[in-house]
């Protein structure tokens, strides 16, 4: 009886890694949603997706305490 063939972790077609649930994520840090986090600071969150470079400004608190 042949041994079951394990599904390869690396998919050469997509260049992505496949986890046990069959979900794909890339080896370059791009998540399942296709979003690559470039920076996450107090001032802004910067990501790259197929739609381009996305800057989410956090805004600045002025005054008060």
């Amino acid at each position, binding site marked *: 009886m042949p041994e079951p063939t394990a599904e390869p972790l690396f998919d050469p077609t997509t260049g992505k890694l496949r986890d046990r649930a069959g979900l794909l994520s890339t080896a370059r840090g791009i998540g399942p949603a296709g979003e690559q986090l470039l*920076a996450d600071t107090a*001032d802004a969150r910067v990501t790259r997706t197929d739609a*381009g470079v996305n*800057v989410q*400004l956090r*805004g600045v608190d002025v*005054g*008060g305490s």
Partner: protein
Amino acid sequence: MASGLNLTTWLAWAQAAIVLDLESGGDTVKCAAFDGSPVPNLDTDTIYGAAPWNAGELAGGGYSAGGATVAGIAYTIESTRLVLRHTAMSTANVTGDLRYLVFWDDTVGDRVVFVADLGQEFPLLAEPLNVSSPDGLYRIRR
């Protein structure tokens, strides 16, 4: 430099030397994108088109000098804060190493109102630049 308001502009506004109408339907407010070459001082660098905001601006087939017009600007009181919100912007085909986003008033003396400092450069090569402020651009506490 951290992100923040331009104090000279706001001082002039407070002293009624200028009158800014930032909300949509008033002044035309733009968002210019610069690389990391300017050395800004939020206390003194008041005018878009004057140093240091006269060099290092990004370019590209979809980017016009001065940047995109900021739409949907509105002030709202949210809990204990006065919040300025705007509609998300998208500019196609931008090229350059983005670091600063300069919000300036194209109607009143090209006054710089707010500068966002991303802390480092982010390269764009003929690709879209999308800017949003989901929590507001700035929030004035009581």
